[in-house]
């Protein structure tokens, strides 16, 4: 996009740079710059901040948010939003743990069942947004409330079977490749799949098209409603999968475990340069956003900031960064 507008001179210089820098969004570069800055700040505070163990641990924690933010990004690219993340995460985790109570078959199917519950939530969102044309912000809040209600009724005030299966624990905390936590590998796989889908498939092109102007996408023969619905289903599924991973990490599922993931997942996507209005953004930016948020959280907790301070700094930082580069164009 920028090559055509900036003209020949810039294009000539940029042409000699590696492709990934040439095509990078200023927002993505800013996020990476902020990551470096946070790492420097952190290393001033504590020596161990730059140790490989610590960084790998951060990457592992980031991968849960990364998986959830991947789904959120797909929805935001459409120009929509998914506010059902909190209870999709919790439902995925709780249902996966609950399935494990039903014998060996249940244990084997625990992870797919949890993800499927998230997909179901996502499909309800998708039907509401795509076919009933309800604003996504509203219908996803409503499904979030319904999912919460279902989980409260299901648990009945006590926790039935809430401990994670061995497979869930292995997926979240085990090591298939020595030194690299499984969760990171999973995030990398999901991220790679997402990049492939977004850049190499007609589905991905359609997502960007709908995000830019759904009317135009519809007129050019895309079944926009199907695409929107699939995107929401994927988002719900990935949120639930994030919940499954979290349950494996904590070895149990809890009701409010998803609450802490709504704002971070939106913030990660938006800080990574994806336009909240849809149609523009790269997965690399989301990766940067996820790492940035995770590092910020980690530094705040290393500094033993109380929860109140964390919330405040967190909100202020997100507003400040959005004001830096997430602004809508001046009207008219």
């Amino acid at each position, binding site marked *: 996009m920028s090559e055509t507008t900036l003209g020949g001179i810039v294009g000539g210089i940029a042409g000699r740079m590696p492709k990934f820098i040439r095509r990078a969004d200023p927002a993505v570069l800013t996020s990476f710059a902020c990551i470096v800055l946070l790492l420097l700040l952190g290393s001033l505070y504590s020596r161990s901040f730059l140790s490989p163990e610590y960084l790998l641990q951060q990457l592992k924690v980031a991968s849960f948010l990364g998986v959830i933010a991947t789904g959120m990004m797909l929805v935001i690219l459409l120009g929509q939003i998914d506010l059902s993340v909190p209870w999709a995460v919790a439902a995925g985790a709780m249902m996966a743990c609950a399935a494990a109570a039903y014998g060996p078959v249940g244990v084997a199917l625990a992870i797919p069942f949890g993800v499927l519950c998230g997909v179901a939530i996502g499909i309800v969102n998708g039907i509401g947004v795509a076919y009933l044309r309800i604003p996504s912000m509203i*219908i996803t809040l409503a499904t979030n*409330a319904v999912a919460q209600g279902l989980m409260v009724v299901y648990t009945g005030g006590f926790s039935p079977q809430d401990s994670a299966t061995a497979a869930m624990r292995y997926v979240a905390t085990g090591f298939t490749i020595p030194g690299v936590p499984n969760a990171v590998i999973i995030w990398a796989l999901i991220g790679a799949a997402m990049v492939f889908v977004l850049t190499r498939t007609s589905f991905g092109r359609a997502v960007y098209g709908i995000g830019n102007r759904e009317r135009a996408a519809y007129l050019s023969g895309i079944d926009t409603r199907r695409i929107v619905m699939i995107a929401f289903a994927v988002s719900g599924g990935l949120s639930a999968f994030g919940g499954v991973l979290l349950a494996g990490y904590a070895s149990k599922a809890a009701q409010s475990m998803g609450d802490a993931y709504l704002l971070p997942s*939106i913030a990660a996507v938006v800080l990574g340069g994806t336009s*909240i209005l849809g149609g523009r953004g790269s997965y690399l930016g989301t990766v940067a956003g996820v790492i940035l948020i995770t590092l910020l959280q980690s530094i705040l907790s290393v500094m033993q900031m109380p929860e*109140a301070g964390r919330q405040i700094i967190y909100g202020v930082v997100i507003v400040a960064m959005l*004001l830096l580069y997430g*602004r809508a164009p001046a009207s008219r």
Partner: protein
Amino acid sequence: MKDWRYWLAEQRGTLLAFGIFIVMFAIYSANHPAGFTANVVQTAANKGVLLAFVAMAQTLVVITAGIDLSVGMIFTLTNCMASWLVIGTGLETAFGVLAVLGTGLLCGAVNGAIVIYGRLQPIVATIATGAVFFGLALLLRPVPGGSVNEDLADFLTGRFFGVLPASLIVLVAVVLVVWVPFRRSELGRAAYAAGSSETAAYMSGVPIRRGKFLAYTLAGLLAAIGGLFLTFFTYTGEAAYASGNAYTLFSIAAVVLGGVSLFGGKGSAIGAIFGALAFRTIGDLLFVFDFDPLWQPLFQGVILLIAVSLGAFALFRVRNRLEWFL
């Protein structure tokens, strides 16, 4: 069209919400063991006005085609604040009330400034400011506690002349002092115009920015009045994340039930008030019919889902498929 028919068409959403509320409340009080007594009405009113204030706040923002996902957190923050300040002698209490309301105004103004002058999307901006407000609330009340001027609290949650719930009177007063002047002012019309069609409003020289800013600011004030009342009912302040979120969510449900269009430019705060009262009554119906309270969140969620899906009926009137996409 005759004047009254035009008026009827304009108020359809409000009247529908009023009708739903009357029906629901009739079922509720008919099945209540104590029947339709002043006590039952007072309890219902006290529970209902909390949501009504927050729903009014949400309405102001929704009218401008925005959304405020931080109303619940302003509500929580002002609750925590009131549990420190609204205490002591009459003068101290008065200053406390003013300080709490001022805080609400300030929170609303911050939201408005970020959304309008910072040009951020209302959803993201208010989720983020909501986190800040909740952090401040937690700073004020790390553990639930505090107290309030109980004379004032009892007076405002009691009954006038033995029958009229005081909280309802305050609600009506707030409508007359805040909503009606806003609705009739130039800036109030600007807020409506901005929600209806921002470009057209801008082209006609309507002060859309000031109108929207006023709407966000007053929304903060109304949420603060709600927070103040929560303190009067509970005598304490608590920074409860779940409750703040629930109020945000319910305020949207109330707004939708009250006939306020989420696309902006249509509806009134009075409709939202009846929406809020109806929503509360529906929730309470479960109790008079002896359901397990565990089912309440699910029931409320399903009501919300149905309420927002009702808007989809407009699709049947669409002649041209391109109108699916706004």
